[in-house]
């Protein structure tokens, strides 16, 4: 364990005022729940709008060192500085488009998953907006900085907070402050202004609901947080419900469902291998991933509906004959389904929905049926 004191986000006093319970998470003292509790917060987000402090995550901007002033050429150049690390088509991003991608190691394992966006504004072409995970940000930033050296420079956005507003009422809430937010569809981003402050707003999140992620300078973060919470449709939501929401949405959590031994094909993230990149095979681990695409991986990530006690991370998965065939990588209780659910890896032959397996919880086998992912349907605001 580290002896470093826990870092605090600029919203820490606001969480204290709301009666939050705090836990250490990736070096930060973060709210795991507020007074209402995880179940109520989870349900509120599914029905209304939940406000999350995700300032522990790692926003950064990668900027071309010598822009030419030709917007498309400058975008292509900065994208080319990042592409050797990821399997996504970054050059092909349209203005204002965001993409989920992966930092891969030489054997195709996942170093991190991240969001990459091409700015909307003409004046910002030749830069990329990135958001990486909290626990991996130092290593990610070093990796990207080194890979881009001589071409582009990575600027971590220290001094900024990141908040997420998620749920079916998130759009109506945000549009009251920022009418331009209505122009964004899922996985689009734009810079907007609120009370003289610059906000980078993306229509994205990690709950399966429609919603937004908003980058704001530290100094303005408490006022934005308070203004959003003033809306009766909005409640503050802690990391506990953030985890149960993303689990129901079937979204993998780095460090649990994804790590450097897991390939994106195994993890069900083959969609992140963009066609141009796949055909070119010009990303780390391309040979392994292409082989897995051709012949099938030896294990795949599945959803499990568990009977009995929740199966937590590390629980073994057994087949009908009692042979251990895999392991739960994250699991818990689904408030929406009122039942335990889990994500884990099993051989492809046992991965079809309806396949009946067992999870071993405290030494006892409990039935667990493979379920289609997501457990709870996504409700993203996609283009009509």
């Amino acid at each position, binding site marked *: 364990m580290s002896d470093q004191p826990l870092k605090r986000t600029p919203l820490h006093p606001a969480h204290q005022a709301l009666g939050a319970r705090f836990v250490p998470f990736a070096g930060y003292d973060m709210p795991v729940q507020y007074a209402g509790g995880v179940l109520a917060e989870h349900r509120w987000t599914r029905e209304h709008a939940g406000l999350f402090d995700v300032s522990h995550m790692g926003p950064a901007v990668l900027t071309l060192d010598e822009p030419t002033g030709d917007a498309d050429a400058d975008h292509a150049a900065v994208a080319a500085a990042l592409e050797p690390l990821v399997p996504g088509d970054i050059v092909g991003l349209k203005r204002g488009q965001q993409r989920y991608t992966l930092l891969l190691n030489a054997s195709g394992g996942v170093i991190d998953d991240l969001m990459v966006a091409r700015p909307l504004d003409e004046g910002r072409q030749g830069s990329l907006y990135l958001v990486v995970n909290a626990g991996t940000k130092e290593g990610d930033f070093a990796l990207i900085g080194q890979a881009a050296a001589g071409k582009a420079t990575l600027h971590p956005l220290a001094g900024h907070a990141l908040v997420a507003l998620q749920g079916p009422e998130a759009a109506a809430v945000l549009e009251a402050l920022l009418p331009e937010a209505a122009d964004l569809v899922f996985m689009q981003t734009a810079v907007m202004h609120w009370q003289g402050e610059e906000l980078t707003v993306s229509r994205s999140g990690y709950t399966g609901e429609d919603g937004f992620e908003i980058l704001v300078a530290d100094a303005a973060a408490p006022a934005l947080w308070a203004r959003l919470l003033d809306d009766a449709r909005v409640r503050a939501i802690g990391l506990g419900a953030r985890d149960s929401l993303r689990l129901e949405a079937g979204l993998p959590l780095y460090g649990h469902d994804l790590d450097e031994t897991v390939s994106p094909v195994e993890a069900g993230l083959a969609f992140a291998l963009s066609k141009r990149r796949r055909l070119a095979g010009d990303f780390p681990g391309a040979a392994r991933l292409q082989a897995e695409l051709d012949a099938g991986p030896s294990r795949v990530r599945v959803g499990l509906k568990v009977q009995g*006690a929740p199966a937590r991370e590390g629980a073994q998965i057994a087949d009908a004959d009692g042979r251990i065939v895999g392991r739960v990588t994250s699991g818990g209780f689904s408030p929406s389904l009122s039942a335990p659910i889990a994500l884990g890896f099993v051989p492809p032959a046992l991965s079809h929905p309806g396949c009946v397996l067992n999870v071993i919880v405290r030494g006892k086998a409990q039935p667990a049926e493979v379920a289609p992912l997501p457990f709870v349907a996504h409700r993203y605001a996609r283009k009509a």
Partner: protein
Amino acid sequence: MHFTKDHEWVELDGDVATVGITAYAAGQLGDVVFVEVPEIGKALKAGDGMAVVESVKAASDVYAPVSGEVVAANGDLPGTPEMVNQDPERGAWIARIKVADKSQVDALMDRPAYEAFLDTL
């Protein structure tokens, strides 16, 4: 009522001890979503795991505060685990244990001592 440092409560009636988890423990756990109660007839030594209470986030063992035999278990809890949050120190009793040695109960904290203990946490 007596209390353990693991936040179980014990109420002795004759030689039968009713056992549950304290309001403090329930509050710390948060929303309880699963309870496993012990089987009737199970012989327990003080300190043995006797039940499991799980919140959304984590599983927590409940330890037998005293030695003895399980003579009853609260069959309502597995179907309504939220009772642990709603009524932890009464309705959400977990098991009744026929105690072998009643002095084990006297050795536990009384309420003022438990509250003083909570102040140290």
